[in-house]
Structures are given as C-alpha cells and as structure tokens.
C-alpha cells in the first residue's frame, strides 16, 4: 500500500481519546489505530504514541524508560534499587527505538519514593546529555510511543498482534514544531504518574509553567510544553478535584472567574496557582485513573486555536481533533465541539461529567441520510483525498453535471474544483477546507463539515445539512453558505463584499465566539431554530470585534458585553468610583454599573453624560475603535436585504411556512458599524514637537 507524505505546510497534530462505558466492551488496539490513522496527514513520521488505561491492571507500578545504552540502564536500575521500598522485577528490553531501547519493570514501592526516583533519574539522564528518560510510571496506565506514524509505533510494540485492549486509549500523531522528533522521548503521550496526555498546540505560558513546576518536585524537562501539561495536571489534582484543576488550567477570563463560572475557582486560588494556567493554543486529551474509576478529560484553549470535538454513541465517549476520527468507529455518535476554553470530562462509571460546552444538545444537528442522486456516484471509501479530488476533476472535465460522493470521512479540500453551475453532493463528514476558493460550484453536504468551510470563496453555494466546525466563511466574498445546524468559533471573519458581490452566511443553529471578527461586508444571519423556545443567547463572546462593514443578524437579544471587546468590568467600575469621589457621579450610578454582569460602551452612553461620560469613554474607545450600531428589531423590516436568502434557506432544508412566519415575528439583534461621516479638516493642527 502506498502512503502519501503530505507537504509539511499544516502545523497540526492529531489527538484522540476513546473511553468505554462500564457495561461496554474494552476497546481494541486496532480500533484505536484505525481512528488515529484516519488523520494521518495531521502528523508526520516524527512521532506517535498511545496510552492504554485499565482499571484492573493491578497494584504494582509499571515503570518504562527509554535508555540510550547499558550505562544509562544501569543508572536507572541502581536508582530504583535505592528508592523502591519493595524492589523491582525487570520485564526486560521491550523494543529497540531510534538510538533508544525501551526498558520496563514492575516496581513495588510507595508513591512518594517513586516520584523522587523518577525525578532523580530523569534529571541525571537529561543532564548527562539526554541519555534516557522514564516515560511511563503508573499502575493503571501504560504508554507506548516512538518515532514514526501511529501504524509504525503500533507495530513496534505489536499492540494489535498482542490483542492489547483497554478501558481508555489516548493516541497521538505528531507534527513537531519546537522540539525535534527524531527521538522517542519527544513523542506523545506524556505521562506523569496516573496521568497521560496528548496535545496539539504550542503554549505561550511555557516559561511561566516551567517556573511553576520547577520548585514543586519536577527538576528536569525535555523541553516540550506537552510534558509540562502532564506534570501540572498531576500536581494540581493532588490538591483539588479534576474539574477544578481543568477549570484553572484553561485559564478562565477574569470575568468568568469573578462571575463564578470557572468551577468555583476563587480569586485567592487563582493567585495561589498562578503559573499553572495554560496560555496560547492547545487542544489536550488526557487520561487519569484514581484506582476507582477511569477518566477522560479534554480541554480547549480560550481562543480555540486548535480543533477539538467530542462524541458519545452510548457505548463509548470520544475526543478527537477531527470528527472523522470518531466517524471511522461510530457512524451514529452524537458529536459536538468543545467551546473555547471548554472542559469535557467523562468517566467509565459516571458517564459524562462535563460536556465541554453549554447547549450541546441543541448544538449538533443530525441530518437524515440521503440516497445519492448524482449522474455519477464516486465512492471515497479507502481513497486518499488527493485520489478522490482527481477522480472528481476527471468527471467534471468529462462534462458530468452532478456528482455524488459517498462514504466521505474527513477527506480534505473537497469542492475546490467544482465548475460553475455544476453540483457536488457529499455524503458523510466533509474534511477541512471544504469549498475553499469556490468560484461557482454548488456543493451540498449530507452530514457535518469540519473546519474552514468556504475560505476565500467568491461565488456559488455551499449547503451543509449538519453542523460546520471552526472558521466557516473566512474571507467569504461572494456566493452563499447555508448551515442547517450550528457553526463553531470565528465564523465569517474577514468576510467582505464588492460592488456586485455580496456574500451571505445563514446559520440555522448557533455560533461560538468571534462571529464576524474583522468583518468588512456581506450578511450573516443566525436563526437558532433548535433553541426557539429557550431563553439563551445564540452567540458566544467577542462578536463583531474589529467589524468595519456588512451586517450581522442574530435572533433574540444579544447581551451588549458579547459585542466587541469591552474593557474589564473591574477597571470600569473603579474608574466610575473615582469619578464619584471627585463628585462627578452619584453613588447610585456606581451601584447601577456594579450590578451589571458586564459593562458595555452602550451601557455608559445610555446612563452617563457630560464630563463623566467623556472621561470614562477613554477606557472603551481608541484610535482604532469603530463604533457599532446595535439595534433590536423584527426581521420583516429587513426583508429587502434578507428576504430572498432566508426563503432560499427555508426551501433548501424543507422548513415549513409556519416556522418561516414565526421567525419573521421574532426579534433580531442587528449589528453593523456606524457609517463614518466624511471627516472635515480639523482646525489648525498643532505643530509636531521634537
């Protein structure tokens, strides 16, 4: 079989976690391998690995070390002898790795002695020139990692041949960025005691995190942020429950902390554990076993700079970088994205503990299966995305007008080669970068679409019967994208329009943060059909930040603080209190603002005037500030702009007349930038000084 080595232009790793419910059967190694190999192109030959958790694995520690030579191994054994209270039983050298062999032993000792031994060995071997490293030392978890693709690592350890199965698997395929991938010590998962994690990202708090762990029993680091994440999880959960540790590690925004939205993390705790929080891009899947139950944790960074979806099919729970990994094992699982800064937690015995987002039930829309009706049917099963795309191109070149592509599962770049007024139907889960640069093609997805749909699309139509994930319609400049379900983070960013080209993005469900960031043109409509009778806001935070053109309609009322980027409430309240001390405001005014959940510019403009307003405005405005007009009105006033497109949306998805009328009666929050009047020349400008 021929493998495609993708060009290394996609800096991304693939992560995976599969946890069984207590009454379901164990997960086999070959199932895990199938799933992670499905995103082989996310990784490279520079590292992959697995972690297997079994609750009934026993009470002895299994210690596994990479060692460069006999001398390093001797040092490991000598140190273990020194620290391990009850001695150890060698299991021998498991397998040779690039310049390293993997040695394993059962160790009979207490936790604290083992912690000290592991730190001592790792420090000595690292300072001696990376001569080896203990990489797995739990009772319930065992890590298998090495250099190569997941399939290579799987065969090195003969996981399939040995019929290895587990309650929980963590898997990873690696695209190295900051540390090389030539030795197995840099491969994921990274483990610390009973924790093992796989990570996609590059955290900017690395230095602060190292300083935090350095004086807390960990004195040697191989230099990857991912290893630190395992250490921090292990450390924090010795002091607090997993939920709280995770809520802290995702680095809650201050307003979440102050509003008690971060698992009751207090400001005092936030200060005490400062340096343990993660900043910058990350998607993490982690496993943990406390001897009573097995847990699977997933965390997304608060800007959601990396993809993360979770799934549940009644038998198993899934965590993945791409939905395709889940679909390769479970066609019917419910799949939803973890929200920015979200935490998902499930256990074998308790099921889902944290869902990773609010409204997960209304977030995913499950499309009905459709029979292929194209003039030509192409089966994508077993084919790489390049093979599929060349087949499609050939058919279109031969004059076929309508192609049905079946058994699609994560195939990337589909719909980039559909000629104008030709049609491509996709059955299954469309992979990343669907319909990028689409010029005039009509693309329909009977299923969900992964990240980056319609990037820089300038004509044609994309119709998605399920959900679309992150960054839908980036730089969309023509044509229309209809999503029956919901969209993820950063939808419609940098969307723009030209004289004869106004793009539309219509969403039947909800949207996460940064909807319409830097938006410069076009129209976005968020309808929220599945939440018609719920009193919930359909969008996340930071909507329309940097918006300079176009218009956004969101059904229902959008809280003022979700729009734009307001300054922190404590700063605003403090400024107002200062104004009160100067006699420019009443104590009642201050109390009024203190009682608001957040303070938007609209709030201060509405309540204050004169000198007080002038002064506090500086916190909200700047040279780059662009005022937004936010109005709440019924859609029927805007039929000229949105009438046709909403009707097409209803027609496309077979939504009834009754629903249409209901939507017309609903209130919408309409956001658009205030049109700037032409600037008159100011009075005599001051001379430049200096």
């Amino acid at each position, binding site marked *: 079989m021929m493998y495609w080595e993708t060009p290394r232009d996609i*800096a991304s790793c693939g992560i995976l976690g599969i946890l069984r419910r207590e009454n379901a059967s164990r997960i086999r190694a070959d199932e895990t391998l199938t799933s992670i190999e499905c995103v082989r192109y996310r990784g490279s030959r520079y590292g992959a690995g697995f972690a297997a958790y079994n609750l009934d694995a026993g009470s002895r520690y299994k210690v596994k070390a990479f060692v460069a030579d006999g001398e390093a191994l001797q040092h490991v054994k000598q140190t273990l002898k020194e620290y391990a209270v009850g001695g150890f039983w060698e299991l021998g050298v498991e397998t040779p790795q690039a310049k390293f062999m993997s040695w394993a032993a059962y160790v009979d000792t207490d936790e604290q002695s083992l912690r000290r031994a592991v730190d001592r060995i790792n420090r000595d071997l690292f300072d001696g020139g990376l001569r080896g490293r203990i990489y797995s030392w739990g009772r319930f978890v065992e890590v298998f990692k090495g250099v190569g693709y997941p399939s290579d690592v799987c065969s090195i350890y003969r996981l399939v041949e040995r019929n290895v199965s587990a309650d929980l698997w963590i898997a990873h395929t690696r695209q190295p*960025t*900051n540390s090389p991938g030539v030795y197995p010590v840099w491969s994921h998962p990274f483990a610390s005691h009973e924790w093992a994690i796989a990570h996609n*990202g*590059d*955290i*900017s*708090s*690395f*230095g*602060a995190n*190292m*300083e935090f762990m*350095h*004086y807390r029993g960990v004195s040697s680091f191989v230099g990857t942020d991912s290893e630190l994440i395992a250490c921090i999880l292990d450390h924090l959960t010795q002091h607090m429950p997993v939920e709280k540790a995770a809520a802290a590690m995702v*680095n809650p*925004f*201050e307003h979440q902390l102050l509003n008690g939205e971060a698992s009751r993390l*207090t*400001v*005092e705790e*936030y*200060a*005490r554990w*400062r*340096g*343990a*929080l993660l*900043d*910058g*891009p990350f998607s993490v899947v982690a496993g943990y076993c406390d001897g009573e139950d097995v847990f699977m944790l997933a965390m997304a960074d*608060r*800007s959601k700079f990396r993809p993360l979806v979770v799934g549940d099919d009644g038998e198993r729970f899934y965590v993945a970088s791409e939905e395709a990994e889940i679909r390769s094992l479970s066609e019917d699982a419910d799949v939803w994205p973890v929200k920015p800064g979200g935490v998902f937690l499930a256990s074998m015995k308790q099921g889902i503990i944290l869902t990773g987002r609010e409204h997960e039930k209304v977030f995913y829309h499950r499309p009905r299966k459709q029979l292929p009706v194209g003039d030509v049917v192409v089966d994508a099963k077993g084919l790489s995305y390049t093979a599929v795309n060349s087949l499609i191109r050939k058919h279109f070149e031969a004059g076929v007008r309508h192609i049905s592509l079946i058994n699609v599962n994560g195939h990337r770049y589909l719909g980039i080669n559909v000629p104008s007024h030709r049609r491509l139907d996709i059955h299954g889960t469309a992979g990343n970068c669907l319909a990028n640069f689409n010029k005039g093609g009509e693309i329909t997805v009977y299923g969900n679409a992964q990240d980056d749909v319609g990037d820089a699309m300038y004509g044609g139509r994309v119709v998605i019967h399920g959900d679309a994930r992150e960054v839908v319609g980036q730089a969309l400049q023509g044509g229309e994208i209809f999503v029956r379900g919901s969209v993820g983070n950063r939808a419609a960013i940098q969307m723009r329009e030209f004289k004869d080209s106004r793009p539309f993005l219509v969403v039947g469900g909800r949207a996460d943060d*940064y909807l319409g*960031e*830097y938006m410069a043109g076009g129209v976005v409509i968020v309808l929220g059909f599945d939440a018609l009778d719920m009193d919930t806001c359909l969008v996340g935070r*930071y909507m329309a*930040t*940097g918006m300079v053109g176009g218009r956004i309609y969101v059904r229902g009322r959008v809280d003022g603080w979700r729009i734009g*980027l307001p300054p*922190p409430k*404590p*700063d605003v309240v*403090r*400024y107002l*209190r*200062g*104004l009160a*001390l*100067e006699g420019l405001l009443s104590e009642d005014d201050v109390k009024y603002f203190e009682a608001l959940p957040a303070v938007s510019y609209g709030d201060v403009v509405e309540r204050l005037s004169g000198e007080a307003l002038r*002064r506090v405005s*500086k*916190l909200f405005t*700047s*040279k780059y500030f662009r005022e937004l007009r936010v109005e709440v009105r019924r859609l029927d006033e805007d039929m000229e702009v949105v009438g046709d497109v909403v009707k097409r949306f209803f027609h496309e998805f077979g939504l009834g007349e009754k629903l249409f009328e209901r939507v017309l009666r609903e209130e919408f929050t309409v956001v658009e930038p205030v049109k700037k009047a032409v600037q008159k020349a100011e009075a005599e*400008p*001051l001379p*430049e*000084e*200096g």
Partner: protein
Amino acid sequence: MTAAWWTPRRIKHLQQMAGAAGREPGEPPIASMGSTGPPHVEQPYFTRDRLVCDGAQVTRPSIDPYREPVETHIYLFRGRVRLSMPVVVKLSPEAGPAFFRAAVKACYCMNVLADVGKNLPDGLEKYGEGLLADAGLRGRAHFAAHVAALGEAAEVVRISASEQFQGLEDVLKQGVWGVYVDEDLGGGAELEVAVSLLDRMLRRRGLRNDVSVIAGGPTVRGSDDIYKLVALGADAVAVSKAVEIAVGLPGARAGEEVFRERVENLLLGFQRELKLLAGAAGVSSFFNSLVGSRELMRAVELDRAVRSKLGVKQAGV
C-alpha cells in the same frame, strides 16, 4: 538635569502618550517599522537593554489586542488587591502639590497603586485603597515599611536593590505579603538583577505566590522596562521619573486637572503598549503567563554570569 538614558526619543514618546505633546494622547506612538530599541539601534544603558523579547510564531500566533483580549490585570497580596496593569506610580512631593494630588486621583481611576511614601496631603484619605504608603500611614493605605522599621503586621517590606537578601529571610518567616525593591534606597545592584534573584529566592522557598514583588524607581523608562521586569519576576513595576517627564515636569505650569488627565493618558498608553508587547509574544494573560516567564526573553551580548542571575538564555542558540 536628566540622566543619559532619558534620550530625546524616549522623552518625546512619553510626552506624546501623556498628551503633553502631539495629538493622540493615550495612544502608543508609532515611531517606525522594526525596532528603535537597544542594544543595536539605541545605545544600551542597563543590563535589561540587552534583553530582547521573544516573538510569537505561526504555531503560537500573535494577538491583536484591539480585537482580542490581552489581560493585563495583576492580583497582589494573595488576590486581595487587583491592579489593572502591573504598574505602581511612585510619587515624590518635590514634583509639586498639584502633580502629587493629580497623580493620586489618576492612579485611583486607572486602577494602579500610587506609592506616596510618607506623604498624604489632606483630602486624599478617601483614595486609601489605591495607595501604597510607609508604615506611618498605617490604616490609611496598603503600607510598605522599611526592614528596620518592621512591625509584626507589616504588609510590604521595602528593600534596596541588592543581590543579597540577608534580613529578608527572617522577615519572610513572619509572613509578609510583599517585597518592594525600591531603587531609591540604593543597594548597588541593577533593578533587573535584584528582581530576578528575589523571584528565584521566593520560588525556592515555595513562597512566590504568597509574596508579591514590586520593584522599580527612577530608571524605569516605560512599558518596555515594565514588561521585561515583569518577565523577570516583578508583579508590579514602580514608575517615578518617567511619569514626571511625561507630564512635562520639571517646568510644566499646568493645573491639577491637566496633570490628572496626562497621568491617566500615560497609564492608558502604558496599558496599550503592554498589551501590544504581550500580544506580539502570543501571551494573553500577564498575571499567569508573563510574571517570571524568562523563557519569553533572550539575552544579547551578556556574559554567562549575568545571564545566570537573570535566568535568561542566550539569543540565537
């Protein structure tokens, strides 16, 4: 007479932000593409001028602080005091009563602490929660005390900029809430070296998150110095001379209102510059991710001994 490190460029920059010059108060002035800073463009004056900040990269992208949150807040004293940014303004009565009063008000509004030392003019008691003061003003502010004058309940200990911390160790055992490295007390060490060694000492003792570190004085020139000192371990940086220069002192004959406006503008400008600096490094949280995060800097032409005191790696290796 101002010291050599107050270059015309720096003075103009501060005055533009404060609104004492130029037309865009509160905005970081844009001087050029690339760097105007030390050590290779401007002459280096301090060790910290040989530290450069590590930028973001494609896998850890920069943040545009005008569109996305970069949190500059800092919690001092185990979460009891919140600052909008890692800044304390150290005031001296010599700068005149109008400026002194204006700065106290501006600091309060902008949610940073004003260090008033032994002085608290009448009518400013109500700004107590925004003040840092010496022990004599106990009860009216968050007070700092000299080591010699230490009482049992001292919250913040004021020390000189030194490489040794004798005396401090005993004080720490009594459970102080903060250490204030005050350049005006002398000490013989450069601020950055003292801060870094103090941060490490507190970490070794497991006290880092219990004891806040404030450091600064007349050599702090602007947000670049603030950023670097925070990355070396300061929770907040005291700025004194820079504020006076920015508002046009000595020489400016402005009233209290004008001074207050200028100090507010300057602080707003500092905050925006700090956000830009952190954003360029892909850092969205000062309190968690920047304090003591030496990994975000590299040293240029500094010898090994100094690098080791700072805990900063050499650039380019």
